[in-house]
């Protein structure tokens, strides 16, 4: 059977502030610029899963199942929140690089083994980050 990929895009609105506890205030401002101020984004979370196309359904994954998983593990946790306050960002700065890895790890745990191909997070229309594990 053929291996194909199914992709889905979700939106997540959250606030954050890029600030490292290991830097001084002046260093934080120099490093992160305006991102050192609290602000927010409409993030787009793109999830790609890969696998055999099921003979009976014609699908790699049932979209309803994928939607439920992403809703439960990612959107319910992060949408309309302050990322800096989440336990997963206590010890790391909520850059979009780190958010991408966090979302990948959370979904890797929640989805069937081997299915998750990548997570892409678009912070704005002009920048995005991708993690494949």
């Amino acid at each position, binding site marked *: 059977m053929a291996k194909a*990929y199914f*992709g889905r895009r979700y939106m997540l609105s959250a606030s954050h502030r890029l600030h490292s506890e290991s830097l001084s205030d002046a260093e934080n401002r120099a490093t992160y610029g305006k991102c050192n101020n609290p602000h927010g984004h409409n993030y787009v979370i793109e999830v790609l899963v890969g696998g055999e196309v099921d003979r009976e359904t014609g699908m790699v994954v049932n979209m309803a199942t994928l939607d439920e998983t992403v809703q439960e593990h990612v959107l319910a946790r992060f949408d309309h929140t302050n990322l800096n306050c989440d336990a997963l960002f206590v010890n790391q700065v909520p850059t979009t690089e780190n958010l991408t890895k966090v979302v990948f790890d959370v979904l890797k745990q929640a989805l069937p083994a081997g299915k998750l191909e990548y997570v892409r997070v678009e912070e704005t229309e002009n920048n995005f980050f991708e993690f494949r594990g």
Partner: protein
Amino acid sequence: MIELTRRATFSASHYYRNEAWSEEKNEEVFGRCARRNGHGHNYTLEVTVSGEADPVTGFVVDLKWLKDVIEDEVLADFDHRHLNLEVPEFAEKKLIPTTENIAIAAWNRLEPAVSKAGGARLSRVRVYETPEIFAEYRGEQ
């Protein structure tokens, strides 16, 4: 190696039904996509070919040529059609025109033409059913 992608759009109708299943099971698995009278989408097809730029033309492939291949091999049969009823891959084989299967069908139609031309190989076909839903096929078995 360079990858080159061309986009095209087509509009088509379809439904998801496994004829071996009961009405209830079709509704349970496919939801509103199982409705017998079907529904439609504006699909976006992304075709990616890869190869080296020709030293004389600077092209991996001529984009106009690729546009014509997509038109002749895919759009001519898929655009403004009912996929379940009118497109052989789905109508004759009773294959469900999911986004995954549409991507595979498009690959199977495009691959011989790209291979025959030489110089570049088909590396990816991605089909967007909506801006938020897509499937892709890279020729993997």
